[in-house]
């Protein structure tokens, strides 16, 4: 039976092609000169160069974290290309000027770049290696005062906002990869929702790594002013290479009084082959600050790709009555390793958080949930509920749970539930004995298992995510 199951979960990666495109690439390696070059190429103001250099100098004093439950050979940071952009890098006036090769690439990936062909109601910022290629629906959003553009543009067009919030949630000194990102980030998305505005469409960023030796270091910043609301989605793919590429992103969210940010990720970076050769190292810092009272930040992630995932989308619940949520599906197959989870830091009174984590391990993969729930001394009446479920497919994979709970307030209520299950021979036989084949049975069981998380995804992407899990785990989803 395990052989049949294994066949079901061994579907090829369909985004693994490389785009032949001329690139403007910085020399390999990292030094202050590299950083000055990046800053110069992007024509950045002095304060941003200082921000980068400060981060870099601090990074030099830091060491890579060794506590995650993953293993990989030491990364040679001098062997990475820190800047790679498709030519021409002159500012484009319209999508018609975009290299047709790029358009074809994203069409092949199913990413809508032409507004008229776009998914109804989704604006997309498209990032290829180090730069943003285009942002759709910018005009329409500007009509209600929403700023949605690439980080590079934001630095020039809205420097006061970027300067105020960049690094305010994830400081340059926060951790090894965040410091590295702060030093070398090349592009990313910026989003600002003004007071009282409910964003009329889903905002989305699509990341594509194309160059073999390049790292991707993007930076996303979302600010939701008082009483505003935004739903944001991020998608990612990369070609198949037999070497590993580093992806070290930083995402910062800020929600002011009564504001709500919903951030969803469908991560499908190349995961390496069945022997663990190649694939993306996804070392990402994502954090949201519920700064205002009654604010809410909700993370939903569907992690199916990457050779290694190291990622803990977190919430700092500073404002009284603020709410943090984390919904996660992490699927690992072959030799993939994932150490992912969340941190919920309760600072304000009556803050609430909810964690629903679903890990699925297959092949010889290693899947860990790691989470911290911290209730500070001022957080009277704080509440947390955590549920961490693991599902094993086959008998050669691993699932671990590392929940840390730290409570410094007597009035807090913290609940943690966990379960581990295995798709068993008897379950599959039960389906089969009713005429249902094994492929549909696995699909039904997995879809049932992840249901609580998938219902959190925006409608358009729930289908995509479900298809993706289906692709990873079998041929079709019933």
């Amino acid at each position, binding site marked *: *039976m395990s052989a049949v199951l294994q066949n079901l979960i061994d579907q090829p990666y369909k985004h693994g092609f490389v785009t032949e495109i001329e690139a403007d690439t910085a020399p390999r390696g990292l030094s202050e000169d590299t950083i000055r070059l990046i800053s110069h190429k992007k024509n950045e103001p002095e304060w941003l160069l200082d921000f980068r250099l400060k981060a870099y100098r601090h990074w030099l004093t830091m060491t890579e974290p060794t506590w995650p439950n993953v293993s990989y050979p030491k990364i040679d940071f001098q062997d990475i290309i820190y800047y790679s952009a498709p030519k021409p890098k002159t500012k484009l006036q319209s999508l018609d000027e975009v290299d047709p090769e790029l358009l074809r690439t994203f069409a092949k990936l199913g990413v809508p770049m032409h507004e008229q062909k776009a998914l109804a109601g989704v604006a997309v910022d498209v990032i290829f290696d180090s730069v943003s290629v285009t942002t759709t629906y910018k005009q329409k959003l500007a009509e209600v005062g929403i700023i949605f553009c690439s980080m590079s543009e934001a630095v020039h067009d809205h420097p006061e906002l970027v300067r105020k919030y960049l690094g305010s949630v994830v400081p340059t000194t926060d951790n090894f990869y965040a410091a590295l990102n702060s030093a070398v980030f090349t592009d990313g998305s910026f989003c600002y929702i003004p007071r009282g505005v409910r964003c009329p469409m889903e905002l989305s960023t699509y990341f594509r790594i194309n160059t073999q030796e390049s790292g991707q270091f993007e930076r996303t910043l979302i600010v939701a002013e008082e009483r505003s609301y935004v739903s944001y989605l991020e998608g990612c793919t990369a070609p198949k290479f037999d070497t590993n590429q580093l992806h070290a992103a930083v995402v910062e969210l800020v929600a002011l009084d009564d504001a709500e940010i919903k951030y969803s990720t469908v991560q499908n970076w190349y995961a390496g082959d069945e022997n663990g050769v190649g694939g993306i190292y996804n070392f990402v810092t994502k954090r949201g600050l519920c700064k205002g009272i009654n604010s809410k930040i909700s993370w939903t992630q569907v992690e199916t790709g990457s050779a290694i995932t190291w990622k803990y989308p977190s919430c700092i619940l500073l404002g009284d009555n603020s709410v943090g949520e984390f919904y996660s599906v992490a699927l690992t197959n072959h030799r993939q390793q994932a150490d992912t989870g969340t941190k919920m830091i309760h600072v304000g009174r009556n803050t609430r958080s909810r964690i629903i984590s679903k890990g699925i391990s297959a092949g010889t993969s290693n899947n860990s949930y790691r989470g911290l729930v911290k209730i500070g001394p001022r957080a009277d009446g704080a509440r947390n509920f955590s549920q961490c479920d693991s599902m094993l497919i086959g008998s050669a994979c691993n699932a671990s749970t590392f929940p840390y709970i730290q409570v410094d307030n007597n009035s807090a209520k913290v609940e943690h539930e966990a379960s581990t*299950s295995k798709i*068993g*021979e*008897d*379950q599959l*036989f*039960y*389906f*089969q*004995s*009713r*005429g*249902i*084949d*094994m492929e*549909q049975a696995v699909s*039904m*069981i997995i*879809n*049932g*298992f992840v*249901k609580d998380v998938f219902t959190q995804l925006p409608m358009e992407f729930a289908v995509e995510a479900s298809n993706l899990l289906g692709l990873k785990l079998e041929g079709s989803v*019933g």
Partner: protein
Amino acid sequence: MKNANAKNLLEVRNLSARIGGVEILKGIDLVVKAGEVHAIMGPNGSGKSTFSKVLAGHPAYEVVSGEAIFDGRNLLELPPEERARAGLFLSFQYPVEIPGVANTQFLRLAYNTVQGGRGKDELDPLEFDDFVREKMKLLDMDPGFLDRSVNEGFSGGEKKRNEILQMALLEPRLAFLDETDSGLDIDALRVVAGSVNSLLTPDNAYVLVTHYQRLLNYIEPDYVHVMDRGRLVKTGDKALALELETRGYDWVAA
């Protein structure tokens, strides 16, 4: 005896099977004709459940020798889902729980798959809902079971009703009912047996697998077989079941 001219639905010849190197079935012969009800009785561990699981195609068992012809097809060559589509049904002694999968979704997929295999129309969720609720009435089942996960948190009796509900939906040619009476109280047994009886036609057949004679008061068998240590050692009519009830299995096995 019931109808000597009826055609053979199932012919099992010299069937032997093992699990983990241990031989459980040691040469079973059995012929079931359309319209018949058979009962297989025997002590714990005699191989009754194994026999039905081997015929349904459970992957843990290995067929060592023999054959099983079902409706003219070589059953042992078919994967389990094909056997079900061909009209073989097993009501499990211990139905597994499938957390997260709604019963109604499961029932509809099973129904549509088997119907599709017969070239019949599939039902959409609304049509199916009406259809399945009618079937549930016959079994005196609460429609609330449709929205719960398959068998999850069901009592023993509720699981058995859910099995018979599936049988009623799939309309098999031949159904093995493995200890269907266990877990049912006397009222429930009457209801379940009533539906089983109402589903019997001249074209289909049942094999009841049971320890006790009790079920046979409600579903009357044409043949009673006694299984002991992997063999069918005695065959008779309903009177044999009553005799077993008073004299025990040792009498036959000895």
